[in-house]
């Protein structure tokens, strides 16, 4: 085990941590060799030899094999991010995406966990709706079949989680209910949805559901996909929440009951706050999985971020540059997922620390 000493000079740090024994030295050398053989050529390809600008793609084809073609992103980024949304109106989905990100940031700040946050969300979502659809305030109407790219991905993920999470709490409570009808319904729903791949749910929502609906009644394709995703996510999240509920000792229920709290108050004030807190890591894990699963809507012809990137490649002058395009997709997905992951770690820390801070304060006062 290597221990890094603070304040030591670089030479002794390297000696202590990388070359302290024969085994360590060997490992260090192997890793350096691999870096030399793998990372350097990659950097060479991705940065030094890369083609950054080439509207016709000619330079890219010449550099193929030796340099990355970032010109593809430069040329097609508008389509990748906003899909087939009318080109001159694309500031609207761009602004909508920024509003989404702003909402995430506001919601992440604990100082903003106040009742007015719900109003901020309502206002934000209304603004996003107006921006995306238009038809008012002099904005041109854009039907949702033309929505796409990042805005669509954020839309599916945000609404998906926003509706699936509360639903999952009710499902988890239902599954633990003492009332047999409610319990069977919850178990039936969870097991049924969880036992089916998301792709088949999306297929059912987009192809089969319209067949069963009475004539004249049609539900929008985007809405159908969104509902399918909400149900799917809710079934998974419900099991995560149930896991948290099971970790709460019986004594907590009994103490709440003995005080005369009703079922919903007991759950709302005593049980769920504790259960959800311990479920943060698996919850965020599921959120991250769900965020990436939104890309499956490509099979029913919705143009989310991954689909628009894929479609960009079908253009003859850019065909064959899949690596660059998918690296770009990976970078965008990674940015969102990594942010979620870091935030959940910070949240666990701060929620756990609240008690520790108060303890320190008390200790100082006593001293």
């Amino acid at each position, binding site marked *: 085990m290597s221990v890094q000493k603070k304040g030591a000079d670089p030479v002794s740090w390297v000696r202590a941590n990388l070359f302290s024994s024969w085994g360590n030295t060997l490992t260090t050398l192997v890793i350096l060799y691999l870096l030399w053989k793998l990372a350097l050529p990659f950097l060479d390809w991705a940065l030094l030899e890369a083609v950054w600008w080439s509207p016709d793609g000619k330079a890219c084809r010449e550099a193929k094999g030796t340099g990355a073609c970032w010109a593809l992103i430069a040329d097609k980024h508008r389509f990748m991010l906003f899909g087939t949304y009318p080109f001159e109106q694309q500031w609207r989905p761009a602004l909508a995406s920024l509003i989404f990100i702003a909402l995430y940031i506001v919601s992440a700040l604990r100082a903003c966990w106040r009742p007015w946050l719900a109003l901020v969300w309502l206002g934000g979502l209304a603004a996003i709706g107006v921006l995306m659809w238009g038809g008012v305030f002099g904005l041109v109407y854009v039907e949702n079949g033309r929505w796409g790219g990042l805005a669509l991905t954020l839309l599916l993920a945000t609404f998906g989680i926003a509706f699936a999470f509360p639903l999952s709490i009710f499902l988890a409570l239902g599954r633990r209910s003492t009332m047999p009808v409610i319990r069977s319904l919850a178990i039936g729903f969870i097991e049924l949805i969880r036992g089916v791949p998301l792709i088949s749910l999306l297929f059912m929502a987009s192809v089969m559901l319209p067949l069963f609906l009475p004539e004249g009644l049609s539900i929008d394709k985007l809405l159908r996909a969104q509902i399918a995703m909400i149900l799917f996510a809710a079934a998974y999240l419900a099991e995560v929440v149930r896991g948290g509920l099971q970790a709460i000792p019986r004594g907590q229920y*009994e*103490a709440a009951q003995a*005080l005369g*709290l009703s079922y919903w108050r007991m759950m709302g004030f005593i049980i769920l706050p504790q259960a959800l807190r311990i479920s943060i890591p698996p919850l965020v894990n599921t959120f991250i999985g769900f965020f990436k699963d939104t890309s499956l809507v490509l099979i029913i012809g919705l143009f989310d971020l991954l689909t628009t990137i894929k479609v960009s490649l079908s253009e003859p002058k850019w065909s064959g540059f899949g690596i660059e395009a998918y690296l770009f997709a990976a970078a965008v997905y990674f940015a969102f997922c990594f942010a979620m992951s870091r935030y959940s770690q910070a949240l666990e820390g701060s929620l756990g620390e609240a008690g520790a801070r108060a303890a320190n304060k008390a200790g100082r006062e006593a001293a």
Partner: protein
Amino acid sequence: MIELVGVNKWYGDFRALKDIDFEVGKGEKVVVCGPSGSGKSTMIRLINRLEAHQSGRIVVDGVELSDDLKSIDTIRREVGMVFQSFNLFPHLTVMENLTLAPIWVRKMPKRAAEEHAAHFLDRVKIPEQADKYPGQLSGGQQQRVAIARALCMRPKVMLFDEPTSALDPEMIKEVLDVMVELANEGMTMVCVTHEMGFAKTVADRVVFMDQGEIVEGAPPSEFFAAPKTDRAKLFLSQILGH
């Protein structure tokens, strides 16, 4: 105040309580003792319906316990309970632990509930701990908070389920002192405990249970000096013998 008539309780095939007849008058302090597994905890947990009985009648303050949620709510509001393992709410401060039920069940305004709670924290002698979390308190302090929490609901009866069994020896006294004070103020109390000193000081009656039955009940002077049954004699020799 509390009346159990012919009460039976089964866990599957196991009969935990057998035809229990038990009565507690207003202001009376009853200590329930007996070997572990004798059904004493189960009996007091029936009184506020943490467990359901299968036959017999339980009447608390004139209300009969039934499956009707209303009767359960009414009774729970009047009956305070203190648990062996404290069962404070770890995510809430001491003050929030104390005011939650008065605000939401008794519908007290927040300010009034907090003043009320401060008064009871004072009575259990930890007024300075209001803003701490339960995890920062010692076991004895936690149990005193739990007593204050139950008292904040202004119950007519207090049930104690082995309140000192999970405590380190040096903390038992501080909890018992609070309970003695409460008894002296005239609270109706049913207390499952092995603290025979406590029983001698405050109990009007000691009830001895074994194998799901009430074997005997008598004033402490009588019960400790001359237990009538062999089972009680054996039990007393075991717990007083060391």
